[in-house]
């Protein structure tokens, strides 16, 4: 005979679920804003800075709320975030390198 497992099902945490949908709405609105910005504002570093800023806001919401990182202990948060410094270094280094190659070629 199959073993029957008795499981206690708890009721839906309405507050939490509402918060999750709210964050989804924020993410959707930010994407819509980016979309509008792409067609109304002139291309240039200012627009790109805006895009990157909004992208980081979206990334913050996804990592902190959806991935729940905000509620982990500090040691875990920092051990995930600090290594990202290497990425920032790589961005700076390779964009400068790309600029130099452009200067040498054109």
């Amino acid at each position, binding site marked *: 005979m199959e073993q029957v497992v008795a499981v206690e099902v708890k009721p839906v945490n309405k507050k939490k679920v509402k918060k999750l949908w709210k964050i989804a709405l924020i993410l959707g609105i930010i994407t819509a804003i*980016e979309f509008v910005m*792409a067609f109304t504002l002139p*291309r240039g570093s200012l627009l790109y800075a805006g*895009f990157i800023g909004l992208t980081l806001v979206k*990334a913050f919401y996804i990592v902190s709320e959806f991935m729940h990182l905000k509620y982990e202990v500090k040691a875990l948060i920092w051990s*995930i975030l600090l290594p990202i410094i290497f990425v920032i270094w790589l961005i700076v280094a390779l964009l400068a390198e*790309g600029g130099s190659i452009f200067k040498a070629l054109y």
Partner: protein
Amino acid sequence: MEVTASVDTETQKNIWGGGTSPLKASYGKIMMWFFLLSDAFTFSGLLITYGFLRYSYPAYTGPADAFRTSQDYWPIPEKIFDAVPFLHGVHLPLLFVGLMTFILILSSVTMVLAVEAGQRMDRNDVTKWMLWTIVGGLAFLGCQAWEWSHFIAGTEEGMVLSNGVIVNGANLQINEYGPPLFASLFFFITGFHGTHVASGVLLNVIIFYNVVVGTYDKRGHYEMVEKVGLYWHFVDLVWVFVFTFFYLI
């Protein structure tokens, strides 16, 4: 005397003696986090390569309305990705990619709802939300397949080279949209992300099966849903960056 000594060893537990978990998370979750960190490095490598090559190519300087694709300069992405299925010939820049972004964000939400249901041991709700997540993932993959086939097939006009040859579509050798590297980067970056989505869908299906047959009810917790959820959100996170750096900028 002896009694107090034994009490002391119990209360002042040696921190290096094992049994303590300073990160207050399970082994599986911590390992998933560090895997995702390494995966973030891989994606950063690809996206930074895009930035590097873009900086080493001339940018298009003329007015945006008069934009024509050429091998001589990097294209404006919104002029390239302007097609939507069933609306042939209509110029709808980035609309389809925007739709793909919404699909992925929504499937991320259904995933957190599955995690929330798992914490309540609610098998029916986990089943429902996992199914929606899988549907979202498959919808995204379908959109990407269409995007790829459209990119490979190219436009009717194509690009006329200086020797009169007309190039239609893009592959790893020729590219009607701009420098050949632009197409290579498109295939590599969206392809690598698409592979992640595909394996994410596969993982979700396995977890879905386990939920339906009651594996996690027997185990007493739904932590596997949380771990796969972390991976799924990461795939969404990467797409947010790909959307910005490949399509918007």
